[in-house]
């Protein structure tokens, strides 16, 4: 039935040859022009599993303001310059940076208003302290308690920093606010950077660096605007005095650098592959028409890029980077047809003889790519669509267009450059070949024991050295390398979020311990609670405690020389009512806390809390998150674990699909279990080689290499099918040469990726080269040897 339908279509194509060739040329030309208008994305999220936790974490980090700020670290390069020069440079930079790319520059913290601010905060203590604190205060309202407090205040006066302490001693003689201030200390610790203040500027501990935080509306993922921003900042930095150097620390630099690296890699890969393909075909066949073997897959890939960009909203650079690999795969079908036409007796008959294995080979490869549609990684869906389109187009061109174009006299017609080397070798030394193969497989299996899976998402970051070195230097100077994990609580209103946050805070303190969870709830109760606290405070002092405390302070203060009105600021503020319900929020200290701990999002608010990103804490907080709907946590560790978990389950899932589809299709063509098992030998060899070589090179398996391994499976089964088909039927269609050429072209397509700087492309290249090489060698040597030894005579058709 296959032959009948194929013949019909083939003959129709022969009749409409001119029209088909013309249409193909128009379509290809249009596709080449269309490449100009395609916009590609460099979004890491496309390559991540669809696991909710992973996507939510990544999206949170991308959308939060953390990643959009740019940090500039200035450094004095001359030993005869002082920190003052550094500060002047920081101020100069601050003055020149502005709209539209920069919305604000923070050079430090002004000392103006600080003391007033904290004294104002003390006025709000009534609404911020809870019932437990008042109970503690109550227990202090006696001679012993007050005496102890007075002694502590007296001690403050003998320290070298006493000048700064006096106003606070007067405003809070009992230390009621100490818990609140301690909590603020914890919140500040969550910043993680080591800065000193000098003249209101952020200065490093070595006094040789100044830090500026540049606020920008440019989002990290917007590559073109990011480029504008970085150029703008670099121009401004260029105007600084010669003795100042500057390092830029920004997510934007990663975006730009990744784009540069990938573009360069793609350009180099496609250039090398193109030249190599052309040279290979022209030198081997000495026939100018062999250039079609190169041009048809390239045209198919170009058309597929256009079609993919129409179907998909965001096309990733990585997918286009795989273009060379896909072309290397798709070229195989043309090679088989070309070889058949050159070595066969009649054009139509020769094509018909190879059509079936070619189509089945393409179907097995397609089935591997189709399996990617079952993945939750959007990038794999793109890869699947792009590859399937390329392969189908190339297959159609190989079967129906190529024979029309290479018909006519065959210059240098021959049996195939690689003759029957593999089959002959298998005749002579099949025992030795099988023995070596078994030993190699055992070695690979032993090496596999060292195999590890690298799930660190930073491995996908191909940023250039200068970006990473600037960051390393920044962390050496300013610290902050160990970024905390973030716990996120959501609510439709700020109050709703605060209520949930309070519950989480209580649970977190119980689970992690005091001081381990930096949460806004430690210092900022809900409005409802604040009102209740205020009422309780008034009630507390009006019940005679005010006069009792006054008397106790006067009586016992005299022993230390405290004056009668020493603590008058405390009593003056005892019943000061905050002017309005949002009085607290008007304090700069709380508006800044809000800036760091509260994020306004469409449809609600998110409250952020911070804790150490360590396994125990992440695990405890994960449990708490599960008990509180609407919350989630973001940590590098948990993201890494989630990716690892998700990728592992994907691998099992996709491998299962491929493991079912490939033997089924092989069985369909070969019609025999034993032959099917033989056809699977290159697959097993290729996969074991990958799993053995990667750890032997000191590398780890990662998501791109797993996906590449599946493509290797799709290719190796083709080699297996063709070689088993060849061993069984021995057709005069140059199968061995065709398989060799197929492997060579794939190796060229994938091999050029070994020159790639981007870690993902390199990983793909290494996996493909290792797997295809091993699969090819086993198909040429091991399959014929095993065929001779293990396939019964009755199965053979020669």
């Amino acid at each position, binding site marked *: 039935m296959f032959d009948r339908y194929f013949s019909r279509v083939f003959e129709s194509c022969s009749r409409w040859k001119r029209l088909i060739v013309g249409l193909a040329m128009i379509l290809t030309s249009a596709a080449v022009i269309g490449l100009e208008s395609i916009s590609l994305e460099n979004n890491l999220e496309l390559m991540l599993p669809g696991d909710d936790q992973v996507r939510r974490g990544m999206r949170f980090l991308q959308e939060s303001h953390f990643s959009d700020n740019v940090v500039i670290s200035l450094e004095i390069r001359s030993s005869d310059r*002082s920190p003052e020069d550094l500060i002047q440079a920081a101020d100069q930079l601050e003055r020149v940076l502005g709209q539209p790319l920069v919305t604000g520059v923070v050079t430090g913290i002004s*000392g103006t208003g600080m003391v007033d601010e904290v004294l104002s905060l003390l006025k709000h203590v009534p609404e911020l302290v809870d019932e437990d604190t008042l109970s503690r205060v109550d227990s202090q309202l006696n001679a012993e308690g007050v005496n102890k407090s007075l002694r502590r205040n007296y001690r403050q006066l003998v*320290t*070298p920093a006493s000048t700064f302490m006096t106003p*606070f001693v007067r405003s809070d003689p009992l230390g009621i606010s100490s818990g609140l201030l301690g909590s603020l*200390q914890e919140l*500040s610790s969550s910043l993680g950077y080591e800065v000193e203040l000098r*003249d209101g500027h952020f200065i490093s501990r070595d006094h040789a660096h100044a830090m500026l935080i540049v606020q920008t509306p440019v989002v990290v993922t917007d590559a073109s605007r990011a480029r504008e921003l970085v150029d703008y900042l670099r121009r401004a930095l260029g105007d600084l005095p010669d003795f100042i150097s500057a390092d830029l620390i920004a997510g934007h630099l990663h975006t730009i650098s990744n784009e540069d690296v990938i573009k360069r890699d793609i350009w180099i890969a496609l250039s090398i592959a193109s030249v190599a393909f052309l040279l290979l075909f022209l030198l081997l066949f000495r026939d100018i028409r062999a250039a079609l073997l190169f041009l048809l897959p390239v045209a198919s890939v170009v058309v597929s890029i256009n079609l993919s960009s129409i179907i998909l909203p965001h096309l990733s650079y990585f997918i286009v980077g795989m273009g060379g690999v896909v072309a290397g795969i798709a070229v195989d079908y043309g090679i088989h047809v070309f070889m058949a036409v050159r070595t066969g007796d009649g054009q139509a008959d020769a094509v018909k003889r190879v059509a079936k294995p070619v189509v089945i080979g393409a179907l097995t490869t397609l089935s591997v790519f189709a399996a990617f549609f079952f993945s939750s990684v959007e990038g794999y869906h793109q890869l699947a669509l792009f590859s399937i389109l390329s392969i189908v187009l190339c297959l159609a061109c190989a079967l129906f267009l190529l024979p029309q174009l290479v018909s006519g006299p065959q210059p240098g017609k021959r049996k195939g450059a690689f003759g029957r080397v593999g089959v002959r070798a298998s005749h002579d030394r099949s025992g030795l070949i099988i023995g070596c193969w078994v030993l190699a497989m055992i070695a690979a299996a032993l090496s596999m024991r060292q195999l590890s899976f690298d799930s660190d998402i930073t491995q996908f970051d191909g940023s250039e050295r200068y970006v990473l070195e600037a960051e390393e230097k920044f962390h050496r100077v300013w610290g902050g390398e160990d970024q905390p994990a973030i716990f996120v609580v959501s609510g439709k209103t700020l109050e709703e979020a605060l209520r949930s946050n309070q519950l989480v805070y209580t649970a977190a303190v119980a689970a992690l311990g005091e001081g381990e969870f930096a949460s806004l709830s430690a210092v900022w109760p809900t409005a409802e609670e604040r009102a209740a606290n205020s009422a309780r405070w008034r009630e507390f002092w009006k019940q005679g405690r005010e006069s009792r405390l006054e008397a106790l302070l006067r009586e016992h203060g005299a022993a230390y020389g405290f004056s009668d009105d*020493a603590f008058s600021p405390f009593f003056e503020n005892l019943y000061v009512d905050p002017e309005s319900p949002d009085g607290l929020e008007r304090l700069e200290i709380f508006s800044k806390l809000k800036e760091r701990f509260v994020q306004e999002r469409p449809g609600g608010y998110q409250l952020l809390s911070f804790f150490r990103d360590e396994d125990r804490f992440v695990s405890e907080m994960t449990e708490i998150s599960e008990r509180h709907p609407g919350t989630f946590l973001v940590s590098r560790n948990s993201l890494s674990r989630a990716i690892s978990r998700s990728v592992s389950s994907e691998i099992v899932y996709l491998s299962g699909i491929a493991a079912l589809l490939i033997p089924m299709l092989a069985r369909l063509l070969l019609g025999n279990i034993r032959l099917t098992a033989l056809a699977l030998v290159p697959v097993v060899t290729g996969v074991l080689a990958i799993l053995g070589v990667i750890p032997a090179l000191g590398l780890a398996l990662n998501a791109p290499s797993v996906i590449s391994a599946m493509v290797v499976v799709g290719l190796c089964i083709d080699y297996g099918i063709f070689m088993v088909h060849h061993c069984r039927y021995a057709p005069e269609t140059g199968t061995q040469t065709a398989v060799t050429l197929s492997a060579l072209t794939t190796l060229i397509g994938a091999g050029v990726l070994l020159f790639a700087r981007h870690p993902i492309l390199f990983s793909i290249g290494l996996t493909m080269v290792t797997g295809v090489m091993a699969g090819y060698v086993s198909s040429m040597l091991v399959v014929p040897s095993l065929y001779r030894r293990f396939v019964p005579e009755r199965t053979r058709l020669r």
Partner: protein
Amino acid sequence: MCALCLCLYWIPVSLASAENDRDRDAPSDVAEVLARLEERASGMQTLKADFLQEKHLALLDQPLVLKGTIFMQKPDLFCWMVKEPLRYTLVIEGEDVRQWDEDTRRVEKISLSKNPVFKTAIQQLKDWLSGAYTSMVGEYQVAVLEEAPISLEFVPRKTSLAHEVIDRVTVIFEPDERYIRRIQIVEKGGDRTVLTFVDTQLNTPIDPSAWKVEQGVR
């Protein structure tokens, strides 16, 4: 109260844009004096001095008089030891602060990097004593009050941490200008602290036990 120091530090009150256009350079005559004093102090490696501190505070009926000893060794050792009216010792080594007092009889450890106000107060005292005057020009406006003996007035700039608390600081040198005789700090609220140094010894070996805060325990 360390938490308080940190809070003061942490509050990002406003973008530090104030006074960006001011002239940070001291007048040339002042700069000359500062450079001269710094030059004379440059050979100092260690300092030991007894001190008498009088604090005239609204908080207290009578001035509080402290007696003690101060030790300093470049680059980063500092000790403030109060003997009267309360035994208290504070030792700073790099970023680590240890303090002990006779009431609690406990050694409390804190970090200067986490207590910038504390650090500022100590740093200023160290700068005054070690003669690092030019580096203070960014934080203070400096004026020469007297030439013989040299008397300098430091007025905190608006962006400095000290601005809200301190009105001015007067530093009076010994006639040979090698070290300080007296520091007077006048606070915004009118409180006043006078720190007088006696028996100042420069570059004499300091007993290593001076850097052990536990000496107060003995």
